[in-house]
């Protein structure tokens, strides 16, 4: 007798009666049934919880990476830790490092697919509104900066290409700088001073989401100077502050020359991002003796995050599979015991006209009820765990609609899979011997 031939000819009425019967039989041994189903409960719950937590973690990572722009390649100047020419530089007193004008022109000229680049430079000093001051940064960049960085101008406008060409003394303030420097009045139209230069405020831009995120995490602590940026045309910055940055900090004197602090290259086609990154790296390796730059490829990060998620999923999947397997074996074990225990009942039913397939169906249904009930319970627990994690660990969790459905389906499938053997063993019994069983 095959499984399929037995599936044929199951009427709905019989199915209903068999389900009622199965529930009755399981209800007779409530504690045993509960304990048996527990394996499935934990298996299913862990599947759902793990999926939700994993999905949430990867969503968070992807969100952060996407904010950097998946078509972007971000180059940053980094102060070298141990330079080969340290002696020389100490004598000249000016530390010269980082991305150069030459790097950028070479990249733009030779790397295929590079569409636009956003160079930037920073000068750190106090920013003044009359007598109010904030420790901040003058950030020189290009007019297409907001578009490239996905940052919205909240009020006013960003500076224009003409303003960049003319080295106009205009500035756009980040939200937090505007709030700190102009706590009471509207900043647009006002003037901000840095050192001896004055800049007219033309707009307010939203904070860098990465900075905003770290800031909100450190809530309560005094606002750092990190997000306090006055964004001005890069030409204006060079005009007013020159190429050499001089810092006087607590008595010591530091001078450094950095042409660009950060350059963002946008690649037109996402497929070209990785080759372009290789080409850029090649150029930089040739031009720089020291490792005084850092390259970040968000797309690469994204891929790595996806890979990490894949590994995570495989690990979690195996754990879940093992726990479900153990649950299934537990069910099979109990069902085999049940079949032995109910040998007499099987004999009676056979004597009263039950066919083998009726017996198979009865025990299979009972197993599926057991595992299905465990599955439902597991779905309940599995949905509660991510909620608790979100509540108490402040982590993003995502429950996708298919996760509980899948987990429940698996639990039913386990019931069928591990129920088949005990059910067929029950059906295979000789009626006479079954009736004689004590």
């Amino acid at each position, binding site marked *: 007798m095959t499984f399929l031939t037995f599936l044929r000819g199951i*009427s709905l*009425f*019989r199915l209903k*009666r068999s389900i009622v*019967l199965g529930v*009755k*039989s399981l*209800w*007779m041994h409530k504690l045993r049934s509960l304990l048996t189903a527990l394996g499935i409960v934990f298996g299913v719950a862990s599947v759902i919880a793990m999926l939700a937590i994993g999905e949430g973690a990867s969503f968070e990572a992807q969100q952060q990476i996407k904010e950097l722009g998946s078509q972007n390649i971000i180059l940053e100047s980094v102060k070298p830790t141990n330079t080969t020419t340290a002696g020389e530089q100490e004598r000249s007193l000016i530390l010269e490092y980082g991305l150069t004008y030459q790097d950028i022109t070479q990249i733009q000229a030779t790397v295929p697919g590079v569409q636009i680049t956003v160079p930037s430079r920073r000068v750190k000093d106090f920013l003044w509104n009359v007598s109010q001051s904030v420790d901040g940064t003058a950030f020189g960049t290009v007019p297409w900066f907001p578009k490239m960085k996905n940052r919205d101008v909240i009020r006013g406008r960003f500076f224009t290409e003409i303003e960049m060409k003319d080295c106009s003394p205009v500035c756009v303030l980040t939200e937090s700088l505007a709030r700190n420097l102009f706590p009471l009045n509207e900043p647009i139209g006002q003037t901000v001073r840095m050192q001896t230069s004055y800049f007219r405020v033309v707009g307010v831009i939203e904070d860098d989401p990465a900075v905003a995120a770290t800031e909100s995490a450190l809530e309560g602590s005094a606002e750092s100077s990190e997000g306090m940026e006055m964004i001005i045309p890069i030409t204006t910055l060079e005009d007013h502050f020159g190429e050499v940055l001089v810092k006087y900090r607590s008595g010591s004197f530091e001078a450094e020359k950095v042409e660009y602090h950060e350059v963002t290259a946008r690649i037109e086609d996402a497929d070209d991002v990785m080759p372009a990154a290789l080409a850029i790296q090649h150029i930089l390796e040739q031009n720089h003796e020291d490792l005084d730059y850092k390259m970040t490829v968000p797309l690469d990060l994204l891929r790595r995050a996806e890979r990490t998620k894949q590994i995570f999923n495989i690990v979690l999947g195996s754990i879940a599979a093992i726990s479900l397997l153990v649950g299934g074996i537990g069910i099979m074990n109990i069902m085999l015991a049940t079949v032995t225990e109910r040998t*007499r*009942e099987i*004999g*009676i*039913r*056979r*004597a*009263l*006209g*039950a*066919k*083998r*397939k*009726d017996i198979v169906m009865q025990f299979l249904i009972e197993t599926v009820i057991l595992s299905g009930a465990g599955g439902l319970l597991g779905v309940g627990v599995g949905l509660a765990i991510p909620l608790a994690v979100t509540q108490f660990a402040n982590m993003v969790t995502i429950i996708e609609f298919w996760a509980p459905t899948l987990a429940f389906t698996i639990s039913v499938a386990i019931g069928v899979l591990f129920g088949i053997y005990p059910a067929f063993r029950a059906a295979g019994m000789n*009626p*006479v011997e079954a*009736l004689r069983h004590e």
Partner: protein
Amino acid sequence: MSDFSSDALVENGLTNSLGAEGCDHRKPVIELLGVEKHYQMGSVLVKALRGIDLKIFPGDYISILGPSGGGKSTMLNILGCLDQPSIGTYLLNGTDVSNLSDDALSLVRGKELGFIFQSYNLIQQLSVVENIEVPLFYQGVSEKESRETAIELAIKVGLGKRLDHRPTELSGGQQQRVAIARALANDPAVILADEATGNLDSKSGGDILEIFDQLNSDGKTLVMITHDEDMAERTHRVIRLKDGGIAFDSRTEN
């Protein structure tokens, strides 16, 4: 032997069946022809039944007696289609059932036969009514109809007030009455009872036998195994099995 020898028409199975035919022209409901049952026990072949020829007619009320190990249960299992003869033919209602498939045998059991066991054999997780309904369920009788039939039968065996009781809440005699109702549910051609009163005290046993008498007078065909000569006396025909053969068969004429 003494009580029944005077009533005996014939002394062995073969002539008996001829004799029975001689005085009864109805078609037999059960006919065994040269039935043997062998069990292989290691290297030894145990012959539990050796050449049984038997005709049972509608309305017969038969008791099977004989020493332990004589083959009574073996024969009843074959009559009940729970087991099949090693050799020989079994005709039930004129149909050869000696070589049927497992499914077909289940169907015959469910439709044509009713069983009553020594140890009642009720299903513990089911109530009185539900137990009576079991054979109907396997015949695909609708819920409503089977419930009605079951209640009717429960009332008939005097358990109208215990419809929803579990077997554990009933006395032995009551349990056996549930088993009788269950055996009647499908309106079978023959009811087979293996020491139905064996676990009961004489009072409850007597009640059961009264029900049997009543059923037979209502026209039911009953075959029961017993060890009790007094019980055998109530029946209209006595068969004695010894060493797997029919040693004695009597039909009491009225």
